[in-house]
């Protein structure tokens, strides 16, 4: 599991790739929180197109980042999840709190 970061105009994009399970979750959490400390973004996008697998541990990671940004008045949303992570996200009901978007290009596939 890898995270790359890109910042522009107060908005941080974190690119997740690989598999996000309980084994990866602690390290991902630590890395993501370090990046939030460093960039202090207003808003944060998690770009998930490279994430090939995610289970409920991934939901816990996203919820924690959501709460963390909420505390500083920021927002978080998810972009371009693949089919398997999307099914987990759907069942978790996280969309009531965190918006999931798909770019036009992806939608056309």
């Amino acid at each position, binding site marked *: 599991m890898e995270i790359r970061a890109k910042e522009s105009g107060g908005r941080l994009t974190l690119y997740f790739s690989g598999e996000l399970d*309980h*084994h990866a979750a602690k390290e991902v959490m630590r890395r993501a929180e370090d990046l939030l400390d460093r960039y202090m973004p207003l808003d944060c996008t998690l770009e998930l197109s490279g994430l090939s697998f995610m*289970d409920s*541990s991934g939901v*816990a990671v996203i919820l924690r980042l959501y709460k963390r940004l909420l505390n500083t008045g920021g927002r978080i949303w998810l972009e371009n999840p693949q089919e*398997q992570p999307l*099914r987990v996200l759907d*069942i*978790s009901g996280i969309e009531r709190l965190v918006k999931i978007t798909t770019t036009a290009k992806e939608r056309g596939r």
Partner: protein
Amino acid sequence: MNSRNYIKIELPSRSVNEGIARAAIACFAAQLDPTLEELGDIKTAVSEAVTNAIVHAYPDSIGRICLRGRIMTSGELEISVRDWGKGMEDVEKARTPLFTTGGPERSGMGFTIMESFMDKLRVRSKPGKGTTVVMRRTLEKRRED
């Protein structure tokens, strides 16, 4: 045994084995020619069951986990995850959505996901003896044309 084929793997309860367990079951399930969605569902359910054993059955030690896959004569896929760890007093409570005794990297969604992604789920547990989770899923017949 009432099965066409089976696989049995024993793993120590180390978190690195979560990925190995779901990859092994995905490999075994491939002979049923599952769709990508079915394979994703099965891998997710296995991941949740094995993670539960690692986190809850053996919180302070490394113990044994037995993972089995079985293709029944009906064509159904059965997966079981067994441990000899702590066990649970109240299985129904553990199955309640969002209930968790796990750390901040758990969401309390594990059983909900197993229930949603598999057709049948049975959990047997005894405090001090261990837990067995058995899940079944019928895979759609692919059109052969």
